[in-house]
């Protein structure tokens, strides 16, 4: 606008307010304009007051560090899943990775939480069923009636037992989904840390090695 352009033209250095009221007297040099952001670590004019030391301070400090360490060990600390490596390895089966199927390590009170948060573990259930089916004695036809009757009685009993077992196991699995991982783990006699797949060994010093690594 014309007036604004005109204002810029005449009287350079005129400000809109009365300079004296703010305290800058006539002829005082204005501070230079700042051309860069303020420094990241500005120099401190005054040293800070020392931190409280003494029994209380040290106890609370130790407590804080302990709590931090303790919380990392609790089941509430969720570690991100180990990324899948390129090739499947035998020792993968026995290494202690996270809980199977993202189930949780601890048992919350499911009555207090929304139903949608409950994670259902399905894979093992299917495995179980497939294992059970072949166990059912195949229905054979035989000539002798006694043996037929005996067998039929046995079949009834065993098929009943099998059905009961299946129902029980399904119920158990529904109730104790979170224990599935442990049953899966305990197929071996060895301690889990036994299976060191040795990948971390020998990878560090590969420079100038002419001989083979045994």
């Amino acid at each position, binding site marked *: 606008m014309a007036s604004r352009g005109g204002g810029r033209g005449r009287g350079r250095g005129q400000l809109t307010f009365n300079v004296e009221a703010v305290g800058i007297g006539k002829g005082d040099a204005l501070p230079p304009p700042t051309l860069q952001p303020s420094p990241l670590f500005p120099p401190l004019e005054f040293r800070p007051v020392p*931190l409280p030391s003494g029994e209380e301070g040290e106890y609370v400090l130790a407590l804080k560090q302990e709590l931090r360490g303790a919380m990392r060990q609790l089941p509430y600390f969720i570690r991100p899943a180990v990324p899948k490596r390129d090739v499947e390895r035998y020792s993968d089966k026995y290494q202690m990775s996270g809980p199977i199927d993202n189930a949780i390590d601890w048992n*919350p009170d499911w009555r207090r*939480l929304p139903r949608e948060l409950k994670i259902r573990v399905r894979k093992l259930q299917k495995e179980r069923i497939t294992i059970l089916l072949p166990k059912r004695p195949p229905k054979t036809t035989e000539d002798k009636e006694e043996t037929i009757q005996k067998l039929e009685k046995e079949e009834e009993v065993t098929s009943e037992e099998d059905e009961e077992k299946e129902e029980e196991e399904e119920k158990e699995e529904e109730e104790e989904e979170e224990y599935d991982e442990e049953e899966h783990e305990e197929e071996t006699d060895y301690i889990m840390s036994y299976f060191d797949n040795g990948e971390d060994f020998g990878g560090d010093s590969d420079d100038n090695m002419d001989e083979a690594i045994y």
Partner: protein
Amino acid sequence: MTQAEIKLCSLLLQEHFGEIVEKIGVRLIRTGSQPLRVIAHDTGTSLDQVKKALCVLAQHNLVSYQVHKRGVVEYEAQCSRVLRMLRYPRYIYTTKTLYSDTGELIVEELLLNGKLTMSAVVKKVADRLTETMEDGKTMDYAEVSNTFVRLADTHFVQRCPSVPTTENSDPGPPPPAPTLVINEKDMYLVPKLSLIGKGKRRRSSDEDAAGEPKAKRPKYTTDNKEPIPDDGIYWQANLDRFHQHFRDQAIVSAVANRMDQTSSEIVRTMLRMSEITTSSSAPFTQPLSSNEIFRSLPVGYNISKQVLDQYLTLLADDPLEFVGKSGDSGGGMYVINLHKALASLATATLESVVQERFGSRCARIFRLVLEKKHIEQKQVEDFAMIPAKEAKDMLYKMLSENFMSLQEIPKTPDHAPSRTFYLYTVNILSAARMLLHRCYKSIANLIERRQFETKENKRLLEKSQRVEAIIASMQATGAEEAQLQEIEEMITAPERQQLETLKRNVNKLDASEIQVDETIFLLESYIECTMKRQ
């Protein structure tokens, strides 16, 4: 939520619960209430991971949920509750001073696990205490229960809202999420349990023997088979009660600093008497008569009634107005002005920050402006007796840091700058808010720096941990001095130096965090009580 608060929440969640929980938690804090699938979609994490994270957050009372129409459950995070995690060590230490080790461990277990049933707490604490006792001694459940009951009576622990028990079965399908309710009367009601037992010591020999057969048979722990008598009744730490205690402590120490030990004891007695009768957000306590106070003074104090009256009059006349006189019956009715006390404490914090950051002359100007409420620049120079140039410089410094603000009073309706008064003023509420924001930023910086220092020296830390483990195992199997020396020398002298420096730095950073958190508590209490008043 300001960016500084969100950043701090993110750091705290990551340190205590891992990255997945941090991602979900920060997402909820940023965007408010959201349903499950939206969270999974927006953060790009799998549905299972989100469910896990939400379970953890709900267990620790950091997230609440609500059923909306059409059965959609929405989750909401409480940012202020996440920030309380900074204060956990202080809560635990306070319980230690009031109820000794047993109480300390009870509150620690409740804070670490979010919420627990009473029987679970008693068992865990008894086991932990038995570990620390000498061989052969065990901790009885009854003692732990007693301490628990005492904590509940003084309201330091409270019941969580529970699932309402419906007598008639629901005609339709059960709701997707339970609505938890709590009755005011039941909040501190301890269930009648007869917990009989002693703490168990974890013996290493037992583990070795049971290790093999355990692996073979399925793990059905016997605890799950027994019905838990107080099933469904969960307890949590009552943080508001702790805050009330901290506030009382701050007031008492302020009075002790300003006057003397006896007056602080009187104020402490008055606060103790009104602990249960006054709600934590009341502006002042219930009026207490001088006779009552005299009767409730601690046993060791032998001051006569007249001396007590004199002290009370002195306290009531003090310009800080911590104690006020509300009537004359019963030898004089006195109240403690809680809101005024918090305002004085916040103001004192501001003054001290100005003094430490800008110098004592600036602090003098700050106190002057506080006293005069609105003052012109010329008058500042005259009243503070500081040369004009310095005064101007200091005023602008404080103005640019937002400790002060300018109030314009125009002389003419056209607000011409040459004909306007510019008055300097301190708005305590906004200055407190600004300082609180800076505190959040400071703590975030401290945590980041600590994590950086630890990451830089990670290799060295791991090495030293391994060496310690080797030494410990060798000592257990009875090794010679020479062998131990050899192992210790695996860490060279400069490395030891580096470790020492690292430890010192980390300790300093941790202690600073604790200090800043104390300031945060004062400022937050002041802001909260001022907002309630308005």
